[in-house]
């Protein structure tokens, strides 16, 4: 036993000081109390007013005490459960735990067979879910696209219905509004075994997106109300562009995004005290030349790190962003931008890091990018796991055994640790030139494509219950009937 001995488990990363975080925190409170946001939802405004917010037309201002009380009510640690009870697929949200997954809604997808960019179709949701289910470093699922080959109002319903049977990793569900949110929830509840069972073991997270600057849209609020009423863990995540729809400075965009997100926090906690809530915000720059929201900019990683520290300071988990790129193809740029944001995200411990697999600045989803980033995340996680220091890892006895001019390959110590101390790549090639040559001189992209195809031809996700299969069919039939007369 030692006294006064401190252990750093993993790599420590800290950007902002407590003083700076307090200043950001006070900035958010100031925006919410003095500037306020527009809330385009009558019932939402009523709920906020009853909770203590000041409502003036559409403008809603929230006093500091109410924000602080809402922060108190939201949990910092909780679990999102695998639908099949596989504990390896559960996600434990809490300090120091970073999780990764794809993102929602790009219109296009990179075809796995042809590598061509084309509209996202229904079967792509199955492909994404199956690959996500198999990848060791991807923890949750999103679709990487908006289904184009079904009735437009049902894109989200079909998306969830395709993904749910093909992965038991928790899904972050996106939807347009109340009706498709309900379709999604019914599927999840059917598998969980009823609403009560779902509340005890929630198996998906709901995603709502308000508008920057400072607008809670009707759809975002409607979806939030649905999720909160049904006790679905939820994300309220704006997508501000620094210099466009948010201040150009990192500190400025962080407080605006937090204010936009915490409007959702206050509303959700007013409806359902204690409902798990992720602070959101995809924070990046509007490129002043290309006029895009950059998903590969260093400022994205930086601003997201600041937002993560603020969320954790306030006691909330964060919806992180990483593994994404502005590149149009699976190339060196995609690898560079994606890997660095993954590593940075892993360092921050941002709780759910999404958009792993976004390319072309979020316009095209690519499961190939996700597969490549799975490697970058594994790599990052080995580093963030850090160095374990104890009597056994110091290995003085083993050093003594081997002595000068010996070797460690026969040592029990080596055998005990070589698989856990070292990270082994799935995609990075470490063979010597001759072996690499003999294996076909493959490039990273070749191996990414091959691995993706291997997974798709061999991976079998665990099955959903037969009753859920039946429920999905009925839910989709009812949904079709609902929209059959709509254009």
């Amino acid at each position: 036993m030692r006294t006064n001995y401190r252990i750093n488990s993993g790599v420590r990363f800290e950007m902002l000081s407590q003083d700076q975080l307090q200043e950001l925190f006070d900035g958010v409170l100031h925006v919410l109390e003095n500037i306020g946001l527009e809330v385009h939802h009558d019932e939402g405004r009523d709920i906020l007013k009853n909770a203590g917010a000041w409502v003036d037309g559409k403008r809603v201002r929230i006093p500091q005490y109410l924000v602080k009380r809402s922060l108190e009510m939201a949990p910092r640690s909780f679990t999102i459960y695998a639908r099949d009870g596989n504990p390896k697929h559960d996600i434990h949200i809490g300090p120091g735990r970073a999780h990764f997954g794809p993102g929602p809604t790009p219109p296009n997808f990179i075809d796995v067979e042809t590598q061509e960019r084309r509209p996202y179709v229904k079967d792509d949701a199955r492909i994404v879910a199956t690959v996500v289910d198999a990848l060791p470093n991807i923890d949750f699922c999103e679709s990487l696209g908006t289904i184009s080959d079904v009735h437009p109002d049902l894109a989200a319903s079909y998306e969830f219905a395709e993904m749910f049977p093909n992965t038991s990793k928790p899904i972050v569900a996106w939807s347009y509004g109340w009706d498709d949110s309900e379709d999604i929830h019914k599927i999840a509840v059917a598998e969980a075994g009823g609403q009560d069972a779902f509340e005890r073991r929630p198996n998906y997270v709901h995603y709502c997106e308000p508008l920057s600057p400072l607008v809670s849209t009707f759809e975002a609020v409607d979806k939030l109300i649905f999720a909160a009423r049904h006790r679905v863990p939820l994300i309220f995540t704006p997508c501000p562009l620094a210099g466009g729809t948010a201040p150009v400075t990192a500190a400025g965009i962080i407080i605006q995004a937090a204010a936009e997100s915490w409007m959702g926090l206050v509303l959700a906690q007013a409806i359902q005290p204690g409902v798990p809530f992720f602070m959101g915000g995809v924070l990046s720059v509007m490129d002043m030349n290309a006029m895009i929201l950059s998903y590969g900019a260093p400022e994205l990683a930086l601003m997201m790190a600041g937002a993560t520290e603020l969320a954790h300071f306030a006691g909330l988990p964060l919806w992180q962003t990483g593994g994404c790129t502005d590149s149009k193809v699976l190339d060196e740029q995609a690898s560079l931008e994606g890997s660095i944001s993954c590593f940075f995200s892993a360092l921050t411990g941002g709780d759910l890091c999404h958009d792993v697999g976004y390319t072309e600045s979020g316009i095209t989803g690519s499961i190939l990018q996700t597969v490549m980033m799975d490697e970058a995340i594994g790599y990052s996680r080995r580093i963030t796991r850090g160095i374990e220091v104890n009597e056994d890892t110091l290995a003085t006895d083993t050093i003594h055994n081997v002595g000068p001019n010996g070797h460690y390959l026969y040592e029990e110590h080596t055998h005990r640790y070589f698989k856990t101390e070292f990270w082994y790549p799935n995609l990075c090639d470490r063979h010597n030139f001759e072996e690499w040559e003999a294996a076909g001189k493959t490039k990273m992209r070749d191996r990414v494509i091959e691995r993706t195809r291997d997974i798709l031809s061999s991976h079998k996700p665990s099955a959903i219950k037969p009753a859920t299969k039946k429920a999905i069919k009925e839910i989709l039939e009812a949904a079709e009937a609902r929209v059959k007369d709509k254009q």
Partner: protein
Amino acid sequence: MSEIYEQIATGILEGNVPKIPELVQKALDEGLNANDILNDGLVVGMNEVGNRFKSGAMFIPEVLKSAKAMHAGQELLRSLLAASGAAQTGKIVLGTVQGDLHDIGKNLVGMMCEGAGFEVIDLGFNIEPEKFTEAIKKHQPNIVGMSALLTTTMRAMGYTIKAIEEAGLRDKVKVMVGGAPVDAEFAERIGADGYGHNAVSGAELAKKLVGAA
């Protein structure tokens, strides 16, 4: 096919160093032929080790443990195999060349070659050309293996081959070379008979050079 062969092969695969001599002895006690124990048990296991290593399912510390177990089994069979007139795999003289003190790679090759059934005479490191020629005269190996890690010392491999030629011993031995900076082209240029890019391929090359693979 006796069940014991399968146990021996599994023991090799697991790298079970204490268990293998026990199993080999048991097989001998059952009256099984030494040559069959080698080929249907030990070699079957070691071949599978090679396959698994190449596919990435086994790692070098595990392979070496298997090689050690293999060696322990073969030691027990050696005199019997010699008496029965069965061909031995061969004898190898190994050394890191003059000026170079790096020997983990060479040691690995030695361990793998022992696992492949060779008798290995390890000269150590920083071995002058004359020491190699003396060792050839003394031990009469089938193969001489040389290793170097440094680009500055790899040239000593060429000098050593020249010394072997000048001593009139070149046609008596095969020469194999290895080490991080060495490649097939270099091996050919200095007149070696082969090059292995790692310990496993080194042992395979050795078997090939003596016609055992």
